[in-house]
């Protein structure tokens, strides 16, 4: 299944620290050679300051039990730097702690004023707080890092050169500490900042691409994320463009999100349009499944693709949690489409198309009928499901069509009337002006 694995591509757009969960996940999946993966992890870890993690990886690689000299030295260095930075920031942090309890915390401006007045706060302090946060992050101490970053965010003005970095850092740290609620907040803040800041087109595109990748992590873990991901990726032209030009593979996540979101069925149409447009640059079983089902109406193909989808999802870190939901919803989609087209279906065929046993399928359909989601009857003698669709009578058609007309016309008339009244008023007012 290595050919559908996106980790390699995704990692290009993620922070070094964010890739570790992905890589660790892959370690458990036996798609790639374990040894190679671990070596790659070690290489990546070496670029950070996470000495313990390095050691751990070395152990897993059976390199040596002993800590090499160089690492020991580095550890000492790291600790020393950390100490020094902490010392620099300590007084300010203390002050913050005190102020936190007071009233001034509510507004960042009053907070900064208070800091400056009472505690001799300077810009250099902010700089060092930022440095410390970054250093902590590099050491893997995300929790503490977030608190410093939070401080920075409050105090810093949005024009500061580090502001963007702080935003990114905050988001990464929140993701790594699995604080999805705050992560979502940070995400929106970052997005607003990117959309409003004056980047050159290329820069903006790059920033957005990164944001898209990071946000996938948040969206699939936050309860509200499933709506938001559709909103952001599909209905914000800027982001849709970014996906189309830079990272069409994101279509997989978008497609998954649409499939598992029953309330947003109308997004499907737009999604399919995009998928078709981009089909030459990117296709995988999930997009192909939708294409089979909604473009070609090839149910056999859809069945096969659904089968493939399961393995793909199982091996994808981002969406592995949605596997069951996905399969269930995909089945429902196949069945719905089926019902719209057919008036009579054999249960055995249906079971075949849905990757189910006939008994299970019958059970499933019965449940659907009972929940009133399906207007149908089962003919158990022949093993058929007969749809209860009635063709639209001409009268119904007529009524449907004129339904809104009078409302619309009335509305229009009302508007015009209002408009003309306004005008009259204005005119009379105008005519007085000259006296």
């Amino acid at each position, binding site marked *: 299944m290595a050919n559908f694995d996106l980790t390699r591509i995704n990692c290009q757009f993620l922070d070094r620290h964010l890739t570790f969960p992905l890589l660790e996940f892959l370690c458990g999946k036996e798609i790639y050679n374990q040894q190679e993966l671990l070596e790659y992890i070690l290489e990546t870890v070496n670029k950070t300051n996470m000495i313990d993690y390095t050691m751990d990886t070395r152990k897993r690689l059976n390199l040596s039990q002993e800590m090499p000299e160089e690492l020991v030295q580095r550890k000492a260095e790291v600790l020393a730097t950390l100490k020094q930075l902490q010392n620099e920031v300590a007084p300010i942090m203390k002050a913050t702690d005190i102020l936190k309890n007071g009233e001034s915390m509510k507004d960042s401006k009053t907070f900064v004023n208070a800091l400056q007045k009472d505690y001799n706060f300077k810009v250099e302090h902010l700089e060092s707080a930022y440095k410390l946060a970054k250093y902590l992050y590099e050491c893997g101490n995300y929790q503490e890092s977030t608190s410093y970053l939070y401080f920075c965010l409050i105090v810093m003005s949005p024009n500061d050169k580090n502001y963007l970095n702080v935003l990114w850092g905050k988001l990464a740290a929140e993701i790594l500490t699995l604080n999805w609620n705050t992560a979502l907040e940070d995400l929106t803040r970052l997005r607003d900042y990117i959309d409003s800041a004056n980047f050159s087109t290329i820069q903006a595109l790059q920033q957005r691409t990164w944001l898209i990748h990071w946000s996938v992590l948040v969206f699939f873990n936050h309860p509200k994320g499933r709506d938001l991901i559709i909103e952001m990726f599909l209905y914000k032209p800027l982001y849709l463009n970014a996906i189309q030009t830079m990272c069409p593979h994101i279509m997989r996540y978008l497609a998954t999100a649409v499939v598992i979101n029953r309330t947003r069925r109308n997004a499907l149409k737009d999604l399919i349009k995009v998928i078709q447009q981009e089909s030459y640059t990117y296709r995988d079983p999930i997009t192909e499944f939708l294409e089979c089902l909604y473009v070609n109406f090839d149910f056999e193909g859809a069945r096969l693709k659904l089968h493939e989808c399961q393995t793909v999802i199982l091996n994808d870190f981002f969406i592995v949690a949605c596997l069951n939901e996905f399969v269930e919803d995909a089945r429902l989609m196949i069945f719905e489409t089926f019902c719209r*087209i057919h*008036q*009579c279906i*054999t249960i055995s065929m249906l079971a075949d198309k849905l990757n189910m046993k006939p008994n299970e399928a019958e059970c499933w359909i019965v449940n659907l009928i009972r929940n009133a989601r399906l207007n149908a009857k089962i003919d158990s003698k022949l093993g058929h499901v007969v749809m209860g669709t009635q*063709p639209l009578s001409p009268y119904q*058609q*007529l009524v449907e*069509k004129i339904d809104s007309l009078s409302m619309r*016309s009335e509305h*229009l008339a009302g508007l015009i009337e209002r408009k003309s009244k306004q005008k009259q008023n204005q005119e009379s007012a105008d005519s007085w002006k000259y006296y």
Partner: protein
Amino acid sequence: MSRFFANGSDSESESSEDEIQATNFNKASAFQFSDDEEEVKRVVRSTKEKRYENLTSIIKTIRNHKKIKDIPNTLSSFEDLTRAYQKALPVISKEENGITPRFYIRCLAELEDFINEVWEDREGRKNLSKNNSKSLGTLRQKVRKYIKDFEDDLSRFREAPDQESEAEDEVVALESDGGDAGDDSDSGVKPTEAAPKAVKTAPAKAAPADDDDSDDSIDWDSDSESETESSDDENQYQNMRERFLKRTTEKEEKDDDKRKDKRKEQKIKIRKRAEDDEDGEWETVVKGHVVEKPKMFEKDAEIDVPLVLAKLLEIMSARGKKRTDRRLQIDLLFELRDISDQHNLGTAVSVKIHFNIISAIYDYNQKISEPMKLEHWALLLEVMQSMMKLLLANADIIMSESVAEEHEEYVTAPFYVRGCPLAAVERLDDEFVKLLKECDPHSNDYVSRLKDEVNVVKTIELVLQYFERSGTNNERCRIYLRKIEHLYYKFDPEVLKKKRGEVPATTSTSVDVMDKLCKFIYAKDDTDRIRTRAILAHIYHHAMHDNWFQARDLVLMSHLQDNIDAADPATRILYNRMMANLGLCAFRQENVKDAHHCLVDLMVTGKPKELLAQGLLPQRQHERSAEQEKIEKQRQMPFHMHINLELLECVYLVSAMLLEIPYIAAHEFDARRRMISKTFYQQLRSSERQSLVGPPESMREHVVAAAKAMRCGNWQACANFIVNKKMNTKVWDLFYESDRVREMLTKFIKEESLRTYLFTYSNVYTSISIPSLAQMYELPVPKVHSIISKMIINEELMASLDDPSETVVMHRSEPSRLQALAMQFVDKVTNLVDVNEKVFDMKQGNFFQRGNMGNRGDRGYNRNQNNQGGNWLGQRRDRNNRNRNQRGHHKNNQDRQQQQQQQVQTIDEE
């Protein structure tokens, strides 16, 4: 002959040119001889001369008229001539002892010959216009009558037409004015630089052979200031000379006469060399001067860089002046180059001289609109290449426009030379295109011209290398664009091979080269025009090689369709060409809808030929002036870049057919039916109007016949009409992978026929078996299944599938007449409300939209999506639509009352 016509068959234009020259000449003369003294002396003019001149000028017009067979004018001129001769008679009898002048006799003889010739040529006579043939008769009679008086002279003339007596005449004539001038010009003439032609001489041997020459020599008798009548420059030069002569007799010779004289003689020699390629009218001769080769430099002068440069400056300073002999300049420069090469003055000087040669050659051709002479162009190419080789071989020479003249450096490295090879090569390229356009595209001439394209490309390549080494971004962009323009329309089969993996992926194809060049331009260009053209060429190239998606994405991303209207005509033509090719590409890549979208704008006007600049339409009632036509001609594409119009139209019609026929079938009773393709409809309707439809002949007839077959769902006949031997040779074989295209076509025809069949005949079935449909249309069952499913989902077909029996069950109950009418009426009312809203919307801006967002949000959104994905035509079409709607609205308002009446009726019926 053709050249003569091209230059202006109306004598008007010619004379106007002459006038210009003449006035210029006047200016020059005024400038040179402002002394009063001379003004007084120049009045001498004998009656003989006056009369003779009059005669000769009339003779000349007669000759001109004869050349273009303008018989009425010949007749009138002949009458003038006889009258003039009558006037001249006393002089003749006095001066020439009553002997008729030879030139007069010659004219009569020629006239007679001419008339006989025309008279004899029965075929030609029939073709003459009424006016012409009438005057021919009159002329013939008159001349016959008239020449009876000269019979003796004529017979004598005919015995020996080329006698020396003529030469004698000339000599006499010359002597006569030479006598005026005193002892003649061997040493005495001192022309200024500006008038080198005045003293041009040549042996008399050329004279008898050429009529023109003898004429001119007669002209020299005149001593007058006749500027406008004489159309020949030589006359004026002659006059000039005579002025000189008169003056020089009274003035002292100057010291440097000797040298000037030598110079003059050299010019003559050069002139002889060049004579082969010159037109007859320029080969004028003046007798009596001894010629001698002039030197560039003094014999003992030490030739070094400053001296050569000074000389160069001297030569070039004459540039652009009216009197300068432009050919002479070129020759002098060549000589200078040889000298500098002989003396090893360094490559920088050589480059400079090369560059000056190039500009001198460009100067030679004064009219921009006309192509330069072929041999000049060849010479230019050669010089250009050798200059670029010099530049490339010597990295220490920097040639640029930005080098100011005072900063030029020729002695020590690094050398700085002022000049711009870019402009030169651009002009070279332009001239090449002009030369191509001059040829008949179907002749061998064109092919042999086209062979030079390789050389042009090579030269561009050289310049490109030079600018890649040292050049600003802007210059690089410009030269890249030149290369792109030679590259983009050429098909490279390697690209497709590479796509199929037949050639290793590392081979560099033209697409790769284009990518590289265009990307540089996208990144570095700061003028919008170069980028736009590069994008267009890039898309064209992609489309040509079936890279449909890349091409489409480039179009969509560039947003060209929004602002192409503001571009210059050449760019718009390129845009049209690009769209045409994109349409063809979409068609090959099985995207019929997109193909139609791309082509519709070109075809709907009915003049794709003009839009693609592949020829002018025959004009109706002088729609455009000559001026306009000239400009339009300049814009035309050379023939080898043309896009086959028949192919284009066929692809358009076929894709329109594939879209339109099922649509018609589906909306047969629909009141709101719109036409997808107007052009296609026209074809269809015109064929329906025919009382008797024969078997199809032309491409259009084939498509129409196919469309008719498709309407009955008869795919076999339809496919046969589209894909057959005739159509293959006419159209389909023009595609690179024609077999694939044909297969694709058959597939589409099957599918669309099936759809049409279902739409048309669904009301006579209650159920249809899918396998039998599949058999009918020779399609696989799953494919049929999928097509029907799609129709059901889109609610085009009121039916559902019955899985156990594999049939389609129709639900559609045919509405009664009343119901159908009611439905139609509802449609109309809906339309009215829609339009009302739209009008209000437009008048009020966004006000309304806010109020109605909830109702229409979804629909509006979908429309936007459509725009993003599929609407190629962008704003222009939108605007059209809006206009149409507006118009529709007014009509609707008028209809309203009718509708209300109708409503009453329907209600009554109910």
